[in-house]
Structures are given as C-alpha cells and as structure tokens.
C-alpha cells in the first residue's frame, strides 16, 4: 500500500508541472503591460522599461517560464504581487485555510445528510419518501451556490438576524451560512448517486444471499448493500469536494470572507497577474491531491482494487 501511495504521489508531479506550464502560457498571452499597471499611465517610457526589466518581463517566454518553474519548485515561491509586492505564496497560505474550512465543512454536511437521504430514498423506492427526497435533490443540484448563499443571508442574517451576514468576526458561526450554501450542490449529487447505486445493489444476488442467511433487514441494508453502494459514491463525494473548493471561491465573495476566492477576484480586478496565476496553480495542485485522496479511498473500500496493489498470493483455480 505504501508503495502505491508513493507511486500515485509521484504521478502528480508531471501533472502539476503541466498545469503550471498551461496556466503560465494562458497568462503569458494576456494583453496589457504589467509595468503600466503597476506604475500607472503617467510613467515615462524609461521608467516602464526599467520596471519591466526589474520584473524580468523583458526576457523571452522560455526564460520566464523556466524562472517561474524554478522558483516554484525550489523555493515554493509563486512570485510577488504587482499591487503590494507581497509574496503571493505567503498570501495564499494565509487565505487558503478559510476557503478550505468552507469546503471541508460543506463536504462533511453533504456526506452526513446526502448519504442517509439517498438510502432513505432507495429503501422507500416507489413510495412518497423517494419522490420527495429526489425532487429536493434535483432542486439542490439546480440552484447556483452563490444564489443559495444570498437567499440564506436574506433569511437568516437579514430577516431573522440569527447569524452573521459577512466577515469572519464571529469565529465558526461566521462559517455556518457559507458552508450550508456551499454544501447544497454536493449534497444533492451525493444523495442522487447514493440512491441510484443503492437501488442497483439492492437487486444484487448477494443481497438475496444475505437475506437467505436470515440476516435482519437493517444489517442487509447497512452492512451488505451500503458498503457496495458507497464505492461509486466516493467518486461523487471527492468530485463534489473539488467543486466545493471552486464554489467556495464564489461564495466567499457573498460573505466577504477573506479567503482565496476574494483574493482572486481582487487580483483579477486589479490585473495582478502573479497573484491570479499563483492562486490558479495552487488550486490545481490542491485539486490533484484531492484526486489522489480519491484513489486512496477507493483502494481502501474496494478489496478488488486493494488486492491489485498488494503483493498477495493470488491463487485461482479449482481444487
């Protein structure tokens, strides 16, 4: 198992390099002169030229890419912000935990509510509980997260005054509404997937075997069916987590939570390219790590996959 984890970790490296090259290239073609952005349009041609040289922007594409990659790999340095000359990686590390907090609690809510909802729907197939749960889930996947956030603010912060509408001044309470808003889409997706894979698994022969053994229905559902049904749900949960990391970026802006999303929007509005680029590269690496996590969970829950990576003495054949 250890070897498998290391192998998968190593496989992230080329992807991360590829992502960095891709993002760098996209940003390279951005129109506009950074020196002008920094110094303003009143600066003289001489000043601009000097600034560009200072930033290393007078060099060619390959040289600049090599510098960027070198700094990233050797010093975990994503460059300096055009706006305030602060280290981009430092700013990201300061803000990312807030984004991660939202995404983490959101996926937690989504799993804790979504899976039981999906099971309830599947177990009550053809009954009203199923229809209600699935219509609710269908609404869940169809609402923009940031709009849900706005509606929650309207109801719980502005009308009922129960929870803060913005900022992170109230500690964890500040995160309640953002997390609920961010969890909606994933919750619905997980509920839908749990239901459909439960329905498929419940019809499986081994479920009949379990019943034929005299196993009580509750154990049949939760031990025999659920463990199999959850395997495809892993994909959805992890994908949802990735989407929530993205969604959290937008939802932050609704609540003015100073996370990576607000950072990116500010950077985009002030054309602070090193900051944008750094944030995108960082998010992509995080996303790759999340995908690695998915593979590891798979290997953990599905013995058929696990055994591929174990040096087990596989003996096949009949006595």
């Amino acid at each position, binding site marked *: 198992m250890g070897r498998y984890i290391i192998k998968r970790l190593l496989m992230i490296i080329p992807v991360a390099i590829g992502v960095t090259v891709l993002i760098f290239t996209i940003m390279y073609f951005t129109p506009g002169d950074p020196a002008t952005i920094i110094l303003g349009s009143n600066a003289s041609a001489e000043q601009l030229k000097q600034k560009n040289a200072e930033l290393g922007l007078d060099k060619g594409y390959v040289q600049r890419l090599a510098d960027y990659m070198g700094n990233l790999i050797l010093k975990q340095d994503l460059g300096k912000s055009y706006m305030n000359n602060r280290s981009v990686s430092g700013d990201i590390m300061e803000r990312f935990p807030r984004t991660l907090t939202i995404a983490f609690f959101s996926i937690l809510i989504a799993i804790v509510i979504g899976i039981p909802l999906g099971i309830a729907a599947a177990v009550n197939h053809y009954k009203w509980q199923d229809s209600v749960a699935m219509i609710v889930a*269908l609404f869940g996947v169809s609402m923009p997260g940031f709009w849900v956030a706005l509606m929650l603010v309207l109801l719980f912060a502005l009308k009922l005054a129960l929870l803060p509408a913005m900022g992170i001044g109230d500690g964890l309470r500040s995160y309640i509404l953002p997390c609920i808003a961010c969890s909606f889409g994933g919750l619905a997706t997980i509920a839908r997937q749990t239901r459909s894979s439960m329905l498929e698994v419940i019809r499986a022969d081994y479920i009949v075997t379990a019943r034929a053994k005299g196993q009580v229905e509750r154990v049949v559902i939760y031990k025999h069916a659920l463990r199999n049904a959850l395997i495809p749900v892993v994909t959805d949960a992890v994908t949802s987590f990735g989407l929530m990391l993205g969604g959290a970026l937008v939802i932050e802006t609704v609540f003015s939570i100073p996370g990576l999303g607000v950072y990116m929007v500010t950077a985009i509005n002030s054309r602070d390219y090193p900051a944008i680029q750094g944030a995108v590269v960082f998010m992509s690496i995080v996303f790759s790590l999340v995908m690695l996590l998915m593979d590891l969970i798979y290997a953990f829950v599905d013995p058929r996959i696990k055994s591929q990576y174990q040096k087990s003495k596989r003996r096949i054949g009949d006595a």
Partner: protein
Amino acid sequence: MRNEMTSPAGRKLKKSSQLKYIAGRLKRNKLAVAGLIIIIIMTLVAIFSPWLAPYQYDKTDLSNMFSPPTREHPFGTDELGRDILSRIMYGGRYSLRIGIISISCAAVAGAAIGSVAGYFGGKSDLLIMRVLDIIQAIPGLVLAIAVSATLGPGFTNCIIALAIGVTPAFARMTRASILNIRKMEYLEAATSINASNFRIISRHVLPNALSPLIVQSTMGIATAILIAASLSFIGLGVQPPTPEWGAMLAGGRNYITNYPHLVIFPGVTIMIAVLSLNMLGDGLRDALDPKLKD
C-alpha cells in the same frame, strides 16, 4: 463532422426507428417531458423577447425605481427602474445561448479529440490523454476564471472559457465509448472493405458513441449556465448592463437588504432553467440506458 454522421440514408433509417423507441421511453417519464416543455418555452420566450416583453430591457424609469412586484411590473423594477421581467426574458438570450453554444463547441471538439485518441490509440492517445489530465487537474470554475481573466470579460470570452473547461470530459467519454466499440466486429468488417479511417470514425464509430454524448450535453448545458452565472456574479462573465441572469444577480446583490426581489427572480429563473435541463437529462439517460427496461 455533424453532417457526416447523419448523411447516409441507411443509417438514417436505422436511427429513426431507434429514436422513436427512445422518444417513446422518454415520453413515459413525466419529469423529463415537463423539463423539455419548460426549456422549449424558455427558449421561445428568449427568442421572441423583443415582441413578448412588456418593456424594453434597458428602458430606465427613474421615477419608479425599486418597485416591488406590481400589476405593471410583475417582477418589480431594479435600481434604474428597469422592468425585471423584461430583463429576465431578454436575459435568456444570453444565459441560454452561453450554455448551448459553449456545450456544442465542447461536444464537437471533445468528440473529435476523443475519437482520434480512442480510434488510433498508441502515442497520439497517450499524448492527448496526458494533456486532458492536465486540463482536468484544474477545477472547472477555476479554469474558467483563469481563461476569463486572460481574455477579459464578455459574452464570447465567457463561452470560450466554459468550452475549454468541459471539452476534456466530452473527449474522455467519446474515447471510452470508442474503445468499447472498437472491439466490435462490424468495425473489422468496415476495415476489411477498405474504408478510410475518417469514414470509419465518422460513419461507424461516432454514431454509436452518440447517446452518452447527448445525455452529457444536456446536463452540461445546465452546468454551463450555472458556471456562467457564477462568472458574471464575480464580475468576469457577461457585464452589466447586459441582462444576463448572473449579471442581474451581481447587480442586485447590493440592494438585497431592502429590495430582495432584485435577486430572487433572476435566481429562480436560473434554477428553473437548470432544473428543467437536469430533469430532461435524467430522463434521457434513463431512456438511453438499455439496462433500465421498465
């Protein structure tokens, strides 16, 4: 490529009976039919909005700002006294078009890339798949943000940003279908009569990979509308005063405390559009899935 797929008469015949069968199964799914009807109505309203809308979408009325829903303005008016209902009707032209065009582009590009990868295999497959890996390593919304930041805001750029993000998913799916189909015997038959690669891909392989593509496209349009709204909301997609639904939400959010109708109605509209597409997509998936017989 599209035309290639439907041109031979024999194919068309076979397809039509298959389509009839699928349509029959789809018709029994009430939610899917409802979704289809709603989305058709929304599209028609968007197309004919200049004639249907009670007001011009950009007609300001400073004497009647922030009007709550009334008989004259069923959805109220916004901060410049513009009629929100009319703006939503016009806005469909942007929101729905962004979804449909970006997904069509992505589907065509993805199908082409995926076919090449799946059909030829080997090194070209490896190269394509690694590039797709890289694009997919960037979360969809983040990639859309990066591309929009580079290209700048706007309608066309928004479409490009979305299309780039979803192309890999289509390519992967097409490749997977094709890898399945490649094993089938009728391809050997086609190869044995010396059909060209292009002919084999376009006439034999693609049509069979089509049904998952259709389902994915329907769902994809729904997702694209959501992402486009998010982009507009953070100021990267379509810009106000264009009445795109996400942009309307962005414009209205500052007034949410006192005039919530500015954000409620555009949001509900997005939800209904996405909901209908999802219901249709679910129905299509079930109708096209041979495993679900009843």
